[in-house]
Each structure stands twice: as structure tokens, then as C-alpha cells.
């Protein structure tokens, strides 16, 4: 991919321009720092939530208080002071946007540099963009069309009000509040997120996306996403920020739950490019995300992620293969540069008979970063004929970076077939020289080689996402060869 003028984009990605976010006019409606039951009651009442949800939050809070922040990941960071964070701030004054022209020009500029105009996105791919928090009109243009099919795609707050029976039924059904420290915290204090329901037999005609969100409370620290695919339905859901997300938040503890009922399929793609901190490792987002899906009979969940951002990433999108003949997939590219740290992977829990899972993970470590794959493949006694194939490769760009692989394989059924392969190697000097000899410069050569290396994963992304993901890889690795 020829990509020029990268320097400026890189500046945008890593530079000082991350000063967007909460501004002065919200001061008056910001809860005091700290977390206690009153704050949770405040969040719940501000959001006009039903009593059951408040109780749910309070229960989660009680559990969280007894839990310890995990120290098993291969990560080193200053643990956040959870009492120094403000857990509720009202969205800032909204402007009604009537057209894309009113979107922040700087953001548009960045997107243009990445080669994605929103018009084009909309026109080419029919991406329904969910500007959840802003309730901005541009985003909801597809809502009507989705509505005709009975598809619900709205913010979590709206879902709580409009579809309480669905939310109550599925919220926390895949990631229980007490699952882990961060999920408990999220359950207690989540402010918003997305909700999606695909009715029986419906094939969602477009990629659903929370594609481009301006940072207000929605992308805030504690996002909650719930996707339910009813029997024999299909949905492809895109999450994240192909444009560099502007965010001052140090801590993100999101929870994503997927429910794939019998014979349905959910494809969930993420391109994560949160602020990674500066070259010295100062600042940057702590990304502690719990993502999990449950697969019922003959259903399929496919996670695809391209992780290039965040100072610290702790993330294991997982599948519980409960139903017979269900399928789980995990495709991941994780790039770390400078002082970034990533500990990411997946869990495939095989419960049903004839369940299959595939794990393809490609790690790329540059600068003085550390990149760990951590995965669990568990075959329970009930899971006859379970199959898993895992391939975890690591590519090292510098002699100061680290690449680590921690696969846990636990099998309790003799009919299981599990294969795990992993390699770690340096970026091929022969390959680079071959490119140089053909007149391709070094930056571009690295970009080509890395994109080729990650191709198996990038191919899983919807077309328009894949192109941007490729560019992101290139940007993330600029000047990375030591």
C-alpha cells in the first residue's frame, strides 16, 4: 500500500491533539470523584432506570468491593485509583447536526487522511452508524430500514426503557457481574453502550456499526454492549474507531456480551486504535475489556480484532460453545510499538458436542513494547468430538521488544482434537532486502510484509474495514525497525 504523508497522520495519532473530550460546560453536572452506593443510585436515577437495574448495579458493586484487581497478566502499569475517577458526567451540550459537514472538522480531516469519508462509507457499504450518545440525526438514517425487519439497534439506555424484557433477560447472562474485577466494576457503573437484537430468521442486510463516535459518555469508560441474535438470524457488527479516538480517559472497562441462539451467526469485528501514549509510555488508555459470546445449537460467533492502540490492553474475546455443533472463531492482529503492552487472546470453552473453534493470532512487537498472547482452550467432558485449531505467531521488529505466548489447553474428553502451533521470529531481512532491490523503500517494505503476515486475519474483516486496518498497521509501525 502506497501511503504517503504518514508523518502528519502519525502526529495526529500520537501527538498532542488529544485534547478533545469533556469540556467546561459539564462541570455543573458531574458527580464528585469516587465510587459508593450513592453514586450508583445517582447514575441510575439520572438515567431513569427501573428498580431491577439499580438493584443489579448495587449487587455488582457489592461483589466488586470484595474483588482484587488481577495481577496475572503480563503487564506492568500503575493501577488506577478507582476512588479518584468521576463515574458520572452528563453529556455535554449537544448540537444538532444536520449533516456530516457539521462533524468536527478536525476529525473529518483525520478520517480523510485515512482515506475514509463518511459519505463514502455510507454510500459504499450501507453502514448504519450509531451515534448513540449524541442522538445525532445523521446516524439514525438506517434505523427505519432496520425497523421494518424488526431489528432493534439502539443505545443501551434506550433499550432499557423501550425493551426492558430483552435487556433484563440477557444482560449479564454471558458475562456475570462477578466474572472478573472489571466486569463487576462495569456492571455497577456502566453509563451506556449499544444494544442490538436480530429477530428470528432475519439476516441483517447491512453491517451494524458503532463506527465513529465522538467521545461523550457513550464511549466513556464503562461501555456496555449486548447483541442478541435470535434463532436462524445473522448479523455482522463492527465496533471501534478506525479513526484515532480522542479520549482523555485513562481507564476503559467495557463489557460486550453476545448471545447467538440456535442456528444464528454473529460476526463481531473490532478495530481498536485508542491513544497509545507517547513514545516514552506516558499517558495512553488502559483498555480492560471483557468480551464474551455464548453459542447455542448450530450457531456461530466469530471475533475479529485489529488492536493497534492503547497503552495497556487486557482483552480476551471468548466463546462459550454451549450448543451442539456450534462454532467459535477468533482472529486477531495485535500491534504494539513504543512502550505499549498488550495481553490479549481468547477463551474457547467447549461444552456442546461436535463444537469447533479456530484461533488465529498474529502479534507484532516493535519499539520496546511487550505483546502477549494468552488463550484458553477448554474441552469439557460433555463436549464429544470437539475440535480446535490454534495458530499463534509473533513477529519481532526490534531487539528491545518482547513477544510471549501463554496458551492454556485443558482437555477432559478423549474424543477431542486440539492442535496448537506457535512461532516467533524476526521480521525477515531477506524479505526486506528483496523489496529494497525492487525499489520499494524500507517503510513500505515493512508495511507490505506485516500486512502480508496479518493477511489471514485482515481477510476476516469486512472489506472497507480491512483497508483502513491495513493503513493503521502501517501507521502504527512507522519508524519501528531498530
Amino acid at each position, binding site marked *: *500500500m*502506497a501511503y504517503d504523508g504518514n508523518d502528519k497522520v502519525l502526529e495526529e495519532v500520537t501527538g498532542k491533539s488529544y485534547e478533545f473530550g469533556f469540556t467546561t460546560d459539564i462541570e455543573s453536572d458531574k458527580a464528585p470523584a469516587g465510587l459508593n452506593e450513592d453514586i450508583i443510585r445517582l447514575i441510575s436515577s439520572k438515567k431513569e432506570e427501573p428498580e431491577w437495574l439499580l438493584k443489579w448495579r448495587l449487587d455488582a458493586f457489592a461483589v466488586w468491593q470484595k474483588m482484587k484487581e488481577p495481577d496475572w497478566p503480563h503487564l506492568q502499569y500503575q493501577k488506577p485509583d478507582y476512588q479518584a475517577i468521576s463515574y458520572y458526567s452528563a453529556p455535554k451540550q449537544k448540537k444538532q447536526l444536520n449533516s456530516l459537514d457539521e462533524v468536527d472538522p478536525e476529525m473529518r480531516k483525520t478520517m480523510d487522511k485515512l482515506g475514509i469519508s463518511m459519505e463514502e462509507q455510507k454510500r459504499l457499504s450501507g453502514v448504519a452508524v450509531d451515534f448513540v450518545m449524541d442522538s445525532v440525526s445523521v446516524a439514525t438514517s438506517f434505523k427505519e430500514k432496520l425497523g421494518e425487519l424488526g431489528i432493534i439497534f439502539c443505545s443501551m439506555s434506550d433499550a432499557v426503557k423501550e425493551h426492558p424484557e430483552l435487556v433484563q433477560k440477557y444482560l449479564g447472562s454471558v458475562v456475570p457481574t462477578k466474572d472478573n474485577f472489571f466486569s463487576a466494576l462495569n456492571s455497577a457503573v456502566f453509563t451506556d453502550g449499544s444494544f442490538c437484537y436480530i429477530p428470528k430468521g432475519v439476516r441483517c442486510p447491512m453491517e451494524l456499526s458503532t463506527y465513529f463516535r465522538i467521545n461523550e459518555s457513550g464511549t466513556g469508560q464503562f461501555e456496555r454492549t449486548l447483541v442478541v441474535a435470535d434463532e436462524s438470524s445473522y448479523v455482522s457488527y463492527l465496533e471501534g474507531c478506525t479513526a484515532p479516538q480522542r479520549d482523555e480517559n485513562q481507564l476503559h472497562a467495557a463489557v460486550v456480551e453476545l448471545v447467538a441462539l440456535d442456528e444464528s451467526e454473529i460476526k463481531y469485528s473490532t478495530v481498536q486504535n485508542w491513544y497509545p501514549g507517547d513514545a516514552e509510555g506516558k499517558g495512553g488508555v488502559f483498555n480492560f475489556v471483557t468480551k464474551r459470546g455464548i453459542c447455542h445449537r448450530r450457531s456461530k460467533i466469530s471475533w475479529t480484532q485489529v488492536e493497534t492502540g492503547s497503552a495497556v490492553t487486557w482483552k480476551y474475546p471468548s466463546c462459550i460453545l454451549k450448543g451442539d455443533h456450534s462454532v467459535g472463531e477468533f482472529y486477531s492482529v495485535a500491534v504494539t510499538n513504543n512502550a505499549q503492552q498488550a495481553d490479549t487472546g481468547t477463551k474457547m470453552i467447549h461444552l456442546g458436542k461436535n463444537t469447533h473453534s479456530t484461533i488465529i493470532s498474529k502479534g507484532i512487537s516493535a519499539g520496546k513494547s511487550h505483546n502477549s498472547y494468552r488463550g484458553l482452550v477448554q474441552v469439557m467432558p460433555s463436549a464429544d468430538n470437539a475440535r480446535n485449531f490454534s495458530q499463534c505467531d509473533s513477529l519481532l521488529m526490534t531487539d528491545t521488544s518482547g513477544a510471549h505466548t501463554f496458551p492454556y489447553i485443558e482437555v477432559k474428553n478423549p474424543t477431542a482434537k486440539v492442535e496448537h502451533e506457535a512461532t516467533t521470529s524476526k521480521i*525477515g531481512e*531477506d*524479505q526486506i*532486502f*528483496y*523489496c*529494497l*532491490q*525492487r*525499489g*520499494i*523503500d*524500507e517503510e*513500505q517494505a515493512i508495511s*507490505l*510484509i506485516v*500486512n*502480508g*503476515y*496479518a*493477511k*489471514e486475519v485482515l481477510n476476516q474483516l469486512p472489506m472497507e474495514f480491512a483497508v483502513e486496518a491495513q493503513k493503521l498497521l502501517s501507521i502504527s509501525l512507522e519508524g519501528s525497525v531498530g
Partner: protein
Amino acid sequence: MVNIKELQASIGETPILKGLNLEIKPGEVHAIMGPNGSGKSTLASVLAGREDYEVTGGAVDFEGQDLLEMDATERARSGLFLAFQYPVEIPGVSNINFMRAAVNGKREHDGLEPIKGKDFLNLVKEKASLVELDGRLRNRSVNEGFSGGEKKRNEIFQMAMLEPRFAVLDETDSGLDIDALRIVANGVNAMRSPDRSFLVITHYQRLLDYIVPDFVHVLVDGKIVLSGDKDLALKLEEKGYDWIKEDVIA
């Protein structure tokens, strides 16, 4: 076009080239032959700018420019092409994308706009027919899973795409059966022109039946010890290299 003077190069502490002189004029085809370990492939690598080799002395003039001052990319963009003895596999990178990046790199160097998609595809089609490279290979990852012959044909295809001024063919005949050799040689011959020069490095005379050189040089122990016309190659084929070591050097 290319003027190599007293070139010395070493790898690590070991000197390989020990004062090599060679002048190649536009349109000429020179062949370099020599026993294993004489420095043939080192010469190719040094000319292309591989950093594993240290140039310890001498100079190389390439069309009035100091070749040794340029990095590998600049050399390539200025019109130097190396057909590798062992072409490298690059998994996941399609041949066609690879060539587009290379062609556009050269065009940028020449102050031209990037090539249009349609023009590029036409060019690919035209050049691929030169070496009978079928469409399947064009879309596969660079050299991945190619047979030995396919790799070499791919090298010549890339050469045709990039239209270099000076091409170095490093043991292009190694590992080729007679049909592949003929195809590769035809590709090279089609590219011969009064303003393009070739340096053909080979261990065997066989290739020179197809690519007929203007000059043949014998490289022994890092130096050219004997030069002649194409008949020299035949003599080498017949008598081997030992007589040179005995007669010429001794």
C-alpha cells in the same frame, strides 16, 4: 554504463572480492563464470547493496553516479535490477501488489504520477506473456509455493515490469529444467536493447547457449583472471576451471 574499479569486499573478517575490475558498456551482455566460492554471488550482492557485505575498497560508477553511495532502494529505482539466485518468499503479499508498489516507487523517483490501475493491469498482462507466467501465479503471494522454475520466471517477469538499465542475473539457470531455461532466456533476450546491459552470473555454460554474451570473464578468488568472447565459456565447459588455476594464475 557500469564501471567497476578495484572493488574489494568482505563478509565479516573474510575478504571475498580482492580488487575486481570490469567495464560494461550500454547494450553489452557480460557473463561471469567461476568455480564455487570465487565471489560470483558476492559481486551480485555488493552491486545490489546488500548490507551484509562490507565494501573495503574500490569504486563502482553507474551512469555517472557513485553506486556505492546509494542505498539498495535508490539503486533499484535508478535502474539496477538483481535477479536473485534464491528469490525470497513473502507470505500474504500478492505478487501483483508487490509489483505495483515497486513500479510506483520507480515512477515516483522518475517524477511520474502513480500508474493507473487499468494501465498497470495491461502492463502486467503484456510482460507476463513474455515469460509465460500464468494469471494464477500473478495473484499468489510473492514466490510462495512457487516451483524453482516459477520463481525464476517470476524474477524475469519483474525485470520486464521494471525495465532496468542494468540487470544482474545471479545464477538464474540454477535449478531450471531445459524448458524453463528456454523460457527464461527468451524473456531476457526479448529485453536486450542498445541501452540496456546485462551481467549474467553462472556456473555453467548451458545458459550461455541461450543468452549469448558479448564477453565472458572468469572469476577466481575474488578477481577476474581471464576474459574472452563466448568461446571461452565453451572451453571452460570442456576443460573445467582447474587449468586456469594452473595455467593462468600460476
